């Protein structure tokens, strides 16, 4: 039955698209825009228009239907509001930096698309929060306060408390404070891990590309072997082994985790930097430098590395997201960053059962989504910036 409705809907849209193009042609006197429009494009326009109208209709539906909260509508409203808020914030952010700052940054922001501005804004905000976490957070990350399970929103009528705007978790720790400290722990550790992965993978990759021969074979096959094992399961396995060595202190496990993830991720970096390096190494200017009698260090760091910045930097952004998500998933599984340190992955796991309340108490179900949202926001932001940088370095216009 649903299929039938879908088919009917598609058929109606077909007709509408046809009429749209026909009307467009006669109304504009056969302008090239309508004249050369393929039917698929016309169909796409109509589909987009329909989705927009449906979105508006859904947004305006009542939140409360005879005392029963409509969770779908509520979440949809929050999503739309959040989207508009962030877009507006990014716009204002870009506007400010187009007029403030040095000539160089002004020019940079003038050529920046809104998505990239959003990404830059998010990254700056996260960096700020994680550096000054101790000053910003209202409570300590391990501090157990009065009541447990206070609903986010700060509205006493809904079970909230204005003193804890994002509520408290099951043992009464302030979620806002833990989110802020979580930025410090999760983002900080991910950053260190990514840097380490790049140091290991990048230098070995360039070395393999420059020297070639048996060293290249040895390193490449070793990397192949490591990459053949599913990353998350491999990490889990190694961390389990490391825990046996680590002794009682939880920070030791964290150090082991950093090294394990760095090594696993460095295999991907190795692959990329080797491939990039191989493309650079065949250039005549490298040959000229070799014939000049330059040493390996000069070749790699002064001749090759500057030409590899763009792809490596882009990979750094992506790799950071992956590392960050790996840490969050390991924490979610209980082997990552150890409690009582606040960590977003752990927070999602601890509060995950509240997601079951989504249907009848949307406010309660928000609790686990806050940490998940913090992860998603950073991932999206970093990816926007990476896309922009790739686009810039590839020399594409418009």
């Amino acid at each position: 039955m649903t299929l039938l409705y879908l088919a009917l809907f598609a058929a109606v849209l077909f007709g509408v698209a046809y009429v749209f193009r026909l009307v467009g042609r006669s109304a504009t006197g056969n302008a090239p825009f309508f004249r050369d429009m393929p039917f698929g494009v016309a169909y796409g326009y109509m589909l987009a228009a329909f989705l927009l109208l449906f979105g508006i209709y859904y947004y305006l539906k009542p939140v409360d239907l005879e005392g029963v909260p409509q969770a779908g509508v509520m979440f949809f409203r929050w999503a739309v509001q959040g989207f508009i808020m962030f877009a507006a914030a990014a716009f204002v952010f870009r506007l400010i930096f187009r007029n403030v700052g040095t000539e160089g940054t002004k020019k940079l922001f003038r050529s920046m698309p809104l998505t990239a501005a959003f990404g830059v804004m998010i990254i700056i905000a996260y960096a700020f929060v994680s550096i000054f976490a101790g000053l910003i957070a209202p409570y300590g990350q391990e501090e157990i306060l009065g009541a447990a399970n206070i609903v986010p929103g700060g509205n006493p009528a809904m079970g909230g408390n204005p003193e804890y705007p994002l509520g408290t978790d099951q043992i009464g720790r302030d979620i806002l404070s833990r989110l802020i400290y979580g930025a410090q722990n999760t983002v900080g550790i991910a950053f260190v891990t990514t840097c380490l992965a790049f140091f290991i993978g990048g230098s070995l990759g360039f070395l393999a590309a420059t020297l070639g021969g048996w060293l290249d074979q040895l390193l490449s096959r070793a990397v192949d072997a490591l990459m053949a094992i599913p990353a998350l399961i491999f990490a889990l396995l190694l961390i389990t082994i490391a825990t046996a060595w680590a002794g009682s202190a939880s920070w030791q496990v964290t150090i082991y985790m950093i090294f394990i993830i760095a090594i696993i991720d460095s295999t991907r970096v190795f692959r990329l930097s080797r491939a990039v390096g191989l493309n650079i190494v065949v250039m005549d200017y490298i040959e000229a430098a070799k014939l000049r009698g330059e040493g390996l260090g000069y070749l790699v760091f002064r001749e090759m590395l500057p030409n590899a910045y763009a792809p490596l930097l882009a990979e750094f952004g992506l790799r950071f997201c992956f590392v960050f998500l790996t840490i969050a998933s390991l924490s979610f599984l209980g082997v990552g960053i150890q409690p009582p340190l606040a960590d977003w992955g752990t927070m999602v796991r601890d509060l995950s059962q509240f997601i079951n309340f989504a249907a009848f108490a949307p406010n309660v179900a928000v609790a686990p989504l806050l940490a998940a949202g913090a992860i998603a926001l950073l991932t999206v932001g970093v990816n926007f910036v990476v896309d922009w940088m790739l686009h810039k370095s590839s020399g594409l216009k418009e």
Partner: protein
Amino acid sequence: MSEPLLKVRGLKIEGRSDETWNPIINGVDMDLNKGEVIGLIGESGAGKSTIGLASMGFTRDGVRISEGSVVFDGVDLVTASAADKRALLGKRIAYVAQSAAASFNPAHKLIDQHTEGPVQHSVSNKAESQEDGIELYRRLRLPNPEEIGFRYPHQVSGGQLQRAMTAMAMACRPDLIIFDEPTTALDVTTQIEVLASIRDIVEQFDTAAIYITHDLAVVAQMADKIKVLLKGDEVEEADTRTMLANPTQDYTKSLWAVRSFERPAKPSVVTGSTPIVSVKNVTAAYGTVDVLHDVSFDIHAGRTVAVVGESGSGKSTTARCITGLLPPRKGYIEFEGVQMPLDYRRRDKNQLRQAQMIYQMADTALNPRKTIGETIGRPVEFYLGLKGKEKRAKVDALLDEIELEPTEYFNRLPSELSGGQKQRIGIARALAAEPKFIICDEVTSALDQLVAEGILKLLAKLQDQLGLSYMFITHDLATVKSISDEVVVMKDGVVVEQGEKADMFTPPHHPYTDLLLSSVPEMDPDWLDNLLEQRGVDNIGDAAVDKM
């Protein structure tokens, strides 16, 4: 007179860069009758290819036709709808690109790509069009016409691929074909073959053609009339013989004059003097296949030795042996009578300094992330040990020597230079090591004629001032004539003939040298006809080479 087949009026084209539209073509008119061939010539950036594409109503991304009309057989292609253009393109207007190797889809057989157009335009069905394709291959004198179409693009040679592409353009028997530099990437002996076949087939089917090239001698063979372009403006247009005999504009005259640069002959070598570089019985291999066989020649102080041959003849491989990038399997290299270590890694700084290299592609020879000052400054610091102010002074002196203003260019990146300027930086980098010997690997083949001439003059001037010796690798015999003292002719890794330039350019020749020399197009519109008459149609290009 009847209406021309293609009528271009007031064509203006703009390209988008830095957020504004900048003019590329500033109003060009062109008429082309049925069966007529027009040659478009000019330097790179003159707008030749842009006009060629615009004749199909097409522009590249970021480029638009802002004004004017392109009327093909009564249809204005500028304002025509996409559907109308689709009906014409491929069927009545066809395009042959410069690089056939990059234009064929490597995943499909030649004949399958050939039949695509006729089937798409319902001119014929697949079987008929295949038969027709074989017939066209025969007319274009491709070897094994029945069989060659069933190969993949990588299985045939560059010249054959270019002819297969011409056949593909002919598949629907179009009224107009646009040839965009179809022979630029080919060797001289292969070029003749392609030129002869293109001309024949265009005549046979009475097809009109726009022939785009920067080589005047080539256009002299192909075109009925010639249009000279400069930076998007038309300089002049006239029929081929008039244009060649007496051009009216100064710019055209300067293009014509390029071919006359020749440096005076130098006194011959004193017998018994030690050569700067001598290559002694070198045999070298890539993997297990020998690509050089027992190559020997000497290069004396202050002289230029041109190494000539087609692609694959081992010219560049010889250079790699001299620099030590490819250690020879047998034989050795001497610098001023001293035997060099075979591998460059075992040579010391001073030995490395003596032989410098200038590359063909200035784009890949300069590190794009280093400023000109850094690029030239590095060998100055590395070899001469100069730092700070002394280094700067030396770099400035070098920039002066290559005729670039030091203050203006010191902090620029290679991307902010033109092709000729980049090549000059390559020369400066080689000079910075204060060498006695420089290998020039096809240094002018990627440049326009006027620019190339500037580079050749600069090299000649430097040689006179500094007493340098050059090994000049090239496939262009005009360049050889203008700059060399001695010539080494190579074929399949063997030195076929060597000697003083004067001897080499006067008969009797070795048969291969003769073939090479007679294959260089001349500025005489009858040259190709005479040559074909002399050699016979089946005895040109690859066929002639194979018979040796």
